[in-house]
């Protein structure tokens, strides 16, 4: 009997987050209601500890735990991204939870555990492990979506997400079962080897790959599997919506790339054409329907569908540049979108009373700072030069053109132009309409300011000086393709 090498260093960030999550749960009964936000700061400390733990993790490059856990710059990049997303979400949530009277510290623990789930998805080399990570992430997110327990919309959101999410998990699992039947393994590298060595059963492998693709496309909300997203995003508590629109999406694409790059390179021409269609459909549907949304949460939901479409363009490109563009874009989009949702959280007031676009009328004359910040995020989402969104889109379309997907790039550029309308409409509302109200009850508090500072800095830094992160994403892409 061979006991595997237990290398705690290789999973140190996940251990850190789990420990802090458990510590928060244990400490909860001993903390009075007034001091609940301390536990929020404890969660922040957890993310910092996990961030520091990336350093020892990066020294453990290689495969661990009988080849089912992989440490390379690809997985480290995603670990970094997930921790960042968790930290910003916690900062955005602290005052929100107090304001809504749902300051239960289970929220922080669930958020940290969901992040651990995402890490497992990005770091594993094994479909069973991927599935476990997927379920940890999904179940934690179902609960977070329904966290406003007395609110009907929140209940609807959790219920819809739960039903459709379980359904899509079943698709994924069926695909895993079939690939195990065809190749006798769930390890991605073993699958790839057995596909290369002949022994075709190509139709069975294609069916398995298609089923896994369906399951993951549900999770990242690309057309035609996007229908759940707007309702779920609208009903969930606003910081959770922000988290859902970036976290599971980034994790889903991380897994998607890992599975298809590592295990199915032999089927590449097939899934490239599938992604072509998915990307084109998603960009068109997301952007066109976003045009007519009066509710800013729904508008951002469709916008997040559209952005998944842009990422799918880079996935279709498939090359080293494509993978690097996916990584860069998920980072740029996450930072920008979390910032936008932080502002929306602040402005929506209690029980999401003011989430319509015309509630933003005249914000600039009353609260010029907030209006400027939200404008920056909208411009970045639209992809105006100098912002993170532009750099991200530029790399994606460049990768698409280099891989010969000219028409896909053309569709991408056209839909981007369409998207300017609804992003700029928010700015028009804020700057060119008369205010309906005083915005006196909008409070910017410490944690929120910190979240905004991080996201503003990230948006501008990635937009103006993208090279440092680009070097990182390129090396990660080279790593993932090897």
């Amino acid at each position, binding site marked *: *009997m*061979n*006991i*595997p090498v*237990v290398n705690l260093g290789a*999973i140190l960030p996940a251990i850190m987050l*789990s420990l802090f999550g458990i510590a928060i*749960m244990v400490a909860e009964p001993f903390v009075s209601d007034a001091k609940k936000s301390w536990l929020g700061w404890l969660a922040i400390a957890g993310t910092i500890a996990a961030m520091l733990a990336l350093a020892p993790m990066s020294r453990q490059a290689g495969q661990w*735990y*009988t080849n*089912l*856990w992989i440490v390379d710059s690809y997985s480290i990049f995603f670990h970094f991204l997930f921790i960042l997303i968790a930290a910003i979400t916690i900062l955005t949530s602290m005052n929100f939870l107090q304001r809504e009277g749902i300051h*239960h510290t*289970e929220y922080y*623990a*669930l958020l940290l*555990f969901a992040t*651990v*789930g995402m890490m*497992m998805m990005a770091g594993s080399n*094994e479909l*069973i*492990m991927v599935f*476990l*990570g997927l*379920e*940890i992430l999904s*179940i*934690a997110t*179902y*609960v977070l979506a*329904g*966290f406003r*327990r007395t609110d009907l919309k929140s209940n609807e959101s959790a219920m819809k997400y739960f039903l459709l999410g379980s359904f899509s998990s079943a698709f994924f699992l069926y695909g895993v079962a079939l690939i195990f039947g*065809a190749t006798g393994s769930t390890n991605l590298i073993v699958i790839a080897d057995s596909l290369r060595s002949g022994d075709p*059963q190509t*139709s*069975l492998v*294609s*069916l398995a790959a298609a089923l896994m693709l369906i399951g993951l496309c549900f999770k990242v909300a690309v057309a035609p599997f996007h229908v759940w997203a707007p309702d779920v995003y609208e009903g969930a508590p606003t910081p959770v919506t922000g988290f859902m629109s970036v976290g599971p999406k980034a994790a889903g694409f991380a897994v998607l790339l890992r599975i298809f790059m590592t295990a199915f390179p032999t089927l590449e021409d097939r899934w490239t054409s599938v992604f072509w269609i998915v990307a084109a459909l998603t960009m068109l549907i997301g952007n066109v329907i976003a045009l007519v949304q009066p509710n800013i949460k729904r508008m951002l939901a469709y916008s997040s569908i559209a952005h998944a479409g842009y990422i799918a363009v880079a996935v279709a490109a498939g090359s080293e540049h494509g993978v690097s563009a996916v990584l860069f874009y998920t980072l740029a989009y996450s930072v920008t979108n979390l910032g936008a949702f932080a502002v929306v959280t602040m402005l929506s007031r209690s029980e999401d009373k003011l989430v319509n676009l015309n509630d933003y009328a005249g914000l600039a004359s009353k609260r010029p700072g907030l209006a400027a910040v939200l404008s920056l995020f909208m411009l970045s989402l639209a992809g105006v030069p100098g912002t993170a969104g532009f750099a991200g889109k530029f790399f994606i379309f460049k990768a698409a053109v280099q891989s010969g997907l000219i028409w896909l790039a053309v569709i991408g550029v056209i839909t981007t132009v369409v998207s300017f309308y609804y992003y700029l409409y928010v700015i028009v509302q804020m700057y060119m309409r008369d205010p309906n109200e005083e915005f006196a009850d909008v409070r910017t508090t410490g944690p929120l300011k910190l979240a905004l500072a991080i996201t503003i800095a990230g948006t501008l830094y990635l937009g103006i000086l993208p090279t440092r992160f680009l070097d990182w994403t390129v090396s990660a892409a080279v790593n993932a393709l090897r």
Partner: protein
Amino acid sequence: MIEILFFFFAALAVGAAINVLVQKHVLYSALSLIVLLSSMSGLFILLRADFLAVIQVIVYAGAIMVLFVFVIMLLNLPEDEDGADRLRWLKFLGIPLGLFFLFLTVITLWNVERQDIVEAQMAGTPELIGRSLFTDYLLPFEATSLLILIALMGAVVFAKKDL
């Protein structure tokens, strides 16, 4: 003999699965689900996955279904009210698409090169499963504990009266 048993359990499973869907009353659906799960465990025994078969009966047909039936009885749901009128037309889209998917799957599986039935090399005994859980699959085994913890927390968050 094995073939006869296989077709018996398989037919029972498929029949029970269809019955779960078409029954109007939830309780009958739940009871058919028990039949489905038990016949699945019969299939597991034919595959010599003894441990899985026992677990299937104890956990699913036993514990979970009892919980199900209790919940149904406690809630005392009214008969099916046909509430989803608004989405009725989706049936005409969903059923053909579902059948198309079934067709694709069946065609693919039918065309898989069939091999002769071989006697399972290893029986799925608790010992072997335990051994692989603590060696090759150590990390997923530990990760499962996190999954269960989250499910537990989720239930508390949703169900507890005042958190």
